[in-house]
């Protein structure tokens, strides 16, 4: 019998996800969204660079985890920073970007259409929120032997947070931020 939720269909994968998070990020706690979707999420805090921000983040599984469609940036684990909120940061960075590149369209062509490198927007609850594009879908593993876990997605996200903070602080250039090599 097939269930709608990945964690019911594949209890072993669920256990593996829990074990990986407990091993690598033990401060994160798992819970279920209270929006009727049945989606599971992890929430916790990380500080990717010395002297940098502490990020309060949610790692939200899609119900078809593990999955990565062609345009599904970050695969089936979505990374939503609660604090700082990306939408708030982007509102602060956009005026400077427009000053640098001349127009909004030129910012967008460059890859800064949302005000930060490597993010995407999606409705979450009643609000539109900005999520971290952790990895190109081709790097998100979805096969039975190896699937990308929330722990791996968070490791990508920590590197993104480092990149974002350094970019905002002028420690790396727009080119390096947009290149996004891992």
């Amino acid at each position, binding site marked *: 019998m097939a269930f709608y939720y990945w964690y019911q269909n594949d209890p072993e994968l669920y256990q593996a996800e829990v074990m990986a998070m407990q091993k*690598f990020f033990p401060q994160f706690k798992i819970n279920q969204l209270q929006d009727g979707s049945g989606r599971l999420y992890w929430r916790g805090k*990380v500080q*990717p*660079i*010395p*002297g940098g921000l502490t990020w309060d983040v949610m790692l939200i599984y899609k119900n078809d985890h593990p999955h990565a469609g062609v345009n599904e940036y970050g695969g089936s684990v979505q990374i939503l920073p609660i604090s700082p909120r990306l939408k708030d940061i982007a509102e602060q960075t956009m005026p400077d970007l427009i000053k640098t590149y001349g127009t909004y369209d030129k910012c967008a062509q460059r890859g800064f259409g949302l005000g930060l490198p490597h993010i995407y927007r999606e409705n979450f609850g009643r609000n539109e929120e900005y999520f971290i594009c952790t*990895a190109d879908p081709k790097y998100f593993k979805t096969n039975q032997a190896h699937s990308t876990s929330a722990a791996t997605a968070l490791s990508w996200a920590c590197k993104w947070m480092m990149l974002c903070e350094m970019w905002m602080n002028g420690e790396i250039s727009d080119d390096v931020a947009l290149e996004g090599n*891992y």
Partner: protein
Amino acid sequence: MDNQNNDAVVARRRALAEALKNGQDVVVAPSGEVEFKEEAQADGQSAIQVPSGKLA
């Protein structure tokens, strides 16, 4: 933060920025701190290797 600590943080961030530019392999400690592999090994931490790839 005293000057010595401040200098250490600046040097550390500079090294990490270089690692970003060069696409160098890094790991992430349980605190979320991005580190070099050798450091995590020396500390005996259960740091997770950031897989190779590109941001979407």
